[in-house]
């Protein structure tokens, strides 16, 4: 009898301790969650210096790095970096992070279509094969992240392989600076600065136009990231940076994950937000969502659905809006601004698209392709 009672007490107390500990853990984090200030301040970077055959500088996460003076091969741990190198010095790219679709391939120059797929560090997972990376002999590992982001796993890779890591910043306002620095690292400052200037001019132009939008004209946008439309990212997320940039209001003001996991919301919550515009993403179930949403009674009362204002950003070869948040967003900013605010933003989008593809991807596209891309298509 006694032992039975004892076991019961033991079990109960273990349960209580566990619950208490969890509660303590939760409360202590919410109070100490000092979030690193998001992107807006462009990182100040001294450009590089060559000492004893080594190029030395402070990278965009504030780390002192020393790399070979001449960098011939680069391994990028995520598509954001891969696309930066591809647009700046494609010959120095040793591989992609994941397999590209046929549709995307038609915008990729022939000699880079067959680069090996190497995996990377994406969504908290490491899929690269350390030995294979070493066998390709990259001179540097490029990691493009966010201020204050944890890059411990990339540092590990560097420790194992002895290959130095260079950190750049992907936030939209830091992209220009990233290109200038990367241009120097890759030994092609001319192209690096040319692209950086292009980025600066394009973003400045968009920024000055959207700056005129009065607060009461701001469009309420919801970013639907799943086939059922109920996954999203909040205004603090790296995935919705462009919405903030073009002066739109992200209806999701919740603090959501900036790590790429997003958050689930309820239908009632979306009805309550009643967004004017919904942005979908073909990488995140957007096509399936578009197929059903206009016939779905749950969604029919939402302003964006009623007025048929659901937009899908182009995703070829790289997405204009997000997933990954890469350099294509420079063009995406212009597209989004002119889509959301036709009264305030007047641009020759078609010619700018062709110009961007020529400048960054070094491909000539036709008027039809440009138009298709603007409408979210562009595939075969």
């Amino acid at each position, binding site marked *: 009898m006694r032992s039975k009672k004892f076991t019961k007490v033991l079990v109960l107390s273990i349960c209580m301790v*566990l619950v208490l500990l969890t509660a303590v853990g939760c409360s202590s984090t919410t109070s100490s969650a000092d979030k690193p200030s998001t992107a807006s301040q462009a990182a100040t970077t001294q450009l590089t210096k060559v000492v004893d055959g080594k190029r030395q500088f402070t990278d965009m996460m504030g780390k002192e790095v020393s790399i070979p003076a001449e960098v011939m091969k680069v391994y990028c741990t995520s598509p954001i970096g891969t696309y930066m190198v591809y647009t700046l010095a494609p010959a120095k790219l040793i591989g992609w992070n994941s397999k590209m679709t046929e549709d995307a391939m038609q915008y990729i120059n022939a000699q880079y279509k067959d680069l090996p797929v190497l995996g990377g560090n994406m969504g908290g997972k490491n899929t690269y094969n350390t*030995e294979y990376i070493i066998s390709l002999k990259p001179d540097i590992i490029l990691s493009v992240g966010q201020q204050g982001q944890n890059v411990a796993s990339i540092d590990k890779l560097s420790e194992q392989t002895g290959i130095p890591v260079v950190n750049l910043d992907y936030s939209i306002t830091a992209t220009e600076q990233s290109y200038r620095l990367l241009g120097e690292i890759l030994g092609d400052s001319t192209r690096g600065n040319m692209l950086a200037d292009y980025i600066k001019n394009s973003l400045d132009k968009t920024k000055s136009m959207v700056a005129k939008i009065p607060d009461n004209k701001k469009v309420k946008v919801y970013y639907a990231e799943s086939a059922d439309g109920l996954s999203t990212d909040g205004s603090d997320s790296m995935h919705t940076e462009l919405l903030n940039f073009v002066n739109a209001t992200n209806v999701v003001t919740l603090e959501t994950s900036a790590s790429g996991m997003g958050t689930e919301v309820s239908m009632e919550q979306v009805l309550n937000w009643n967004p004017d515009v919904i942005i979908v993403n073909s990488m995140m179930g957007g096509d399936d969502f578009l197929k059903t949403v206009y016939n779905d009674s749950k969604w029919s009362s939402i302003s964006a659905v009623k007025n048929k204002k659901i937009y899908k950003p182009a995703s070829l070869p790289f997405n204009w809006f997000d997933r990954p948040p890469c350099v294509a967003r420079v063009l995406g900013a212009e597209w989004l601004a002119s889509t959301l605010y036709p009264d305030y933003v007047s641009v020759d989008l078609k010619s700018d698209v062709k110009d961007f593809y020529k400048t960054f991807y070094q491909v000539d596209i036709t008027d039809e392709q440009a138009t298709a891309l603007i409408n979210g298509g562009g595939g075969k």
Partner: protein
Amino acid sequence: MRDTLKSAAGTPSITGWRNRLPGLPVMTALILILVIVFLISLTIGRYGIPFEQLMQIFFAKIFGMTGQGTVETVLFNVRIPRILCGVMIGAALAGSGAAYQGIFKNPMVSPDILGASAGAGFGAAFAILNSFNIISIEITAFIFGLAAVGLTYALSSVIGRNSNAVLVLVLTGMVVQSLFSAFTSITKFVADPNNKLQEITFWLMGGLNSITSREVLMMFIPFVIGLIPLFLFRWKINVLSFGEEEAKAMGVDTGRVRLILILASTLLTSSAISVAGMVGWVGLIIPHFARLIVGPDYKKLMPASVLIGGTFLLIVDNVARTVFATEIPLGILTAIIGAPFFLYLLLKGRSAW
């Protein structure tokens, strides 16, 4: 399955277990296989190192010479640490699985089923959230792994009185497991996404592609501490599996022995998880496989499980790191091999238990 254990209790002496195969030659063979697989593992990988070059490097290393640059980096910073960890992880999971099965007199249990893995995972997440240092993270993982096993055992002995104890323990384990998984999710939910969340995710995912000599050391110490009691007390696991009264009659302090064995097994589990993340199935199937070969006597079963576990995980990891240009997560492979094998055991009948 209980019947076989009961009938085992009827045998007059512990040494009187029916022998599947003679002990010593089998053990020697298992050690030999592990050594051979280990040596083969050194030669394979995405970075091709020819055998002669491998020999040269080792000779150079022995005579204190340096050279070869990249090849040495691959061998000493990437491949060897990974191989060593692979062996230890497999051995730890299989050894603790075998011990748990004996301690709880239940062939269906393993570190994951008892909740040790989920508990250790939560402990680590909790520790990372509170910015503990690396050693405290390990200790917290161990403590929560232990708490989970304790909770499973205590709950099942309350619920399972007078009923199917085997089933109740498995079910309680599932409850505890999902409870701790939920705790982990809460921890991830409140974690700072830029920093802590990534760290937690990275820790839970594990994976052997970022192992350095530091991880080898980190794993080695708890591995040895955990394995020693399992070896020293391995014959007592036989006694424990007879049942409480028989064991007491044989003069074994069941409470103390059980506690030590649980502590040691959980330490092994949590140290394996801290390096490799959640790797399922090894702790469940390897002891069964070992039983097929050497029979149910823990004197032979424990070393056999440890040796086979190490060999098995090493082979699986070799596949994971060589087949594709990108890594295949270890847990996927162990599940693909483990689940059908376990079904085969179930279909084949319980004679092996």
